[in-house]
């Protein structure tokens, strides 16, 4: 039994090779089984009683005539032809005693007959299915449905506690805000000053005054104080890293900066 399965399975596997994903139809047939079914109908007998021997002949004839007409048949048609020729020869020979599970020719023929019947049964089922009254074609649902409207029933969970605490906190904050609010002094961060200087490296003239390096919009008032302090600290960091030199002649005097990587003195590093 299982060997019969295997045996047949091998033929079928060839018939349905996935790489033949596009199927060349022969005169409108969808594969060898479809062709066989059409030929079987020509015999005008019940499929259950169809002569497989005659069917094999019809099929081989068909393949032969296709060949004569120079039609190129898809491989699966040829595989079926070869298998039918083999089946035919076995059916014609006297039946040898069944070898240990090996399917007999009659069994193979019966199985083919059954597959044809099954295909036809499914075809009829498909036809019956498609003949049903279909929604949107023969029968129609309500054309203008009245959908259920969802009404949101909102409930608020706010309590008198929320109300009073929001009010008290807000009023207090406001009253305090009016009495003392530390003024926010503008601050140029040291990191910003340093990043700015680093971008300027190579373009700083020899011994430029520190004041000349301040950002233009930070050159007066509180902003100037913050910018001066941050830029000085940034210069000290860069000097520590050996990227610039700093000089001040005496306390509180102007601070001068020299770019060690500047274009004027490229090899000063030594």
């Amino acid at each position, binding site marked *: 039994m299982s060997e019969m399965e295997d045996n047949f399975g091998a033929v079928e596997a060839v018939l349905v090779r996935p790489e033949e994903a596009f199927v060349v139809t022969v005169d409108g047939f969808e594969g060898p089984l479809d062709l066989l079914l059409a030929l079987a109908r020509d015999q005008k007998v019940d499929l259950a009683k169809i002569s497989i021997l005659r069917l094999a002949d019809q099929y081989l004839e068909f393949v032969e005539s296709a060949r004569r007409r120079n039609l190129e048949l898809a491989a699966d048609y040829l595989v079926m032809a070869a298998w039918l020729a083999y089946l035919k020869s076995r059916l014609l020979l006297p039946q040898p005693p069944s070898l240990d599970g090996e399917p007999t020719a009659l069994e193979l023929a019966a199985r083919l007959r059954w597959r044809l019947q099954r295909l036809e049964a499914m075809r009829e089922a498909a036809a019956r299915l498609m003949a049903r009254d279909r929604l949107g074609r023969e029968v129609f649902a309500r054309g203008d449905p009245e959908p259920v409207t969802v009404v949101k029933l909102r409930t*608020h969970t706010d309590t008198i506690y929320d109300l009073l605490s929001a009010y008290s906190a807000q009023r207090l904050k406001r009253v305090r805000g009016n009495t003392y609010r530390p003024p926010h002094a503008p601050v140029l961060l040291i990191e910003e000053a340093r990043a700015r200087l680093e971008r300027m490296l190579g373009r700083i003239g020899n011994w430029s005054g520190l004041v000349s390096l301040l950002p233009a919009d930070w050159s007066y008032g509180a902003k100037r104080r913050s910018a001066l302090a941050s830029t000085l600290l940034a210069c000290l960091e860069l000097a520590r890293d050996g990227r610039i030199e700093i000089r001040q002649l005496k306390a509180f005097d102007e601070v001068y900066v020299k770019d060690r990587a500047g274009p004027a003195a490229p090899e000063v590093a030594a």
Partner: protein
Amino acid sequence: MNRVLRLAEIAGDTEAVDMPAGAPPQINPEHLRMVEALLFAASEPLSAESLSGSLPEGADIAALLSELQQLYEGRGVSLSQVAGKWQFRTAPDLAFLLRKEKPEQRRLSRAAIETLAIVAYHQPVTRAEIEDIRGVALSKGTIDVLMEVGWVKIRGRKRTPGRPVTYGTTEAFLLQFGLESVSHLPGMDELRAAGFLEAVPPSGFDIPSPSDELAPDEDPYEPGDDLTDEAPDPIS
């Protein structure tokens, strides 16, 4: 009786029931079925003319429609006429079936509850006054939200230039927060006692005593008033 017989005729086999002699306009049950199906499947109301166009020649469309309307009378579905056209609709008294209520719990945003509290304590209060008390401009939707929830209403207009509208709280507000009237909102001492304010509030801090009564400088709101609810913008 006549009516019932005709019902039976439509519902069941046509041969079995004899039309009583002298029955009013001959209703062809086949035509009735057709009108029924056409109206059911239509995506919009149909006029008698367009129904006629789909029915066999000579069908008495007016009689058919009136028969169909009677047939559905008192049922879950009724045949109604809108703008001269016909359509099936579910019976109006069953509208509740087509409405699902979905409970949803919400909380006001910080800005909204602060604004609500200010309206409650300082009413009647104008938008500009609310902004002054909060120290922040009111975003467009805040008062709208409170009015939509139904806790804040426009109560009048202030007798100042521009006649800005004044806001106050509603009955629903009192219900939500369990207050008998706005004058029952806790005052300074009670807020202090409840721990909302520290023992010694900053100097100049006071809590107003709100009232439902019109303020001396307030006019009642008349819906006929123009709908600007703000003082003219001083900038534009």
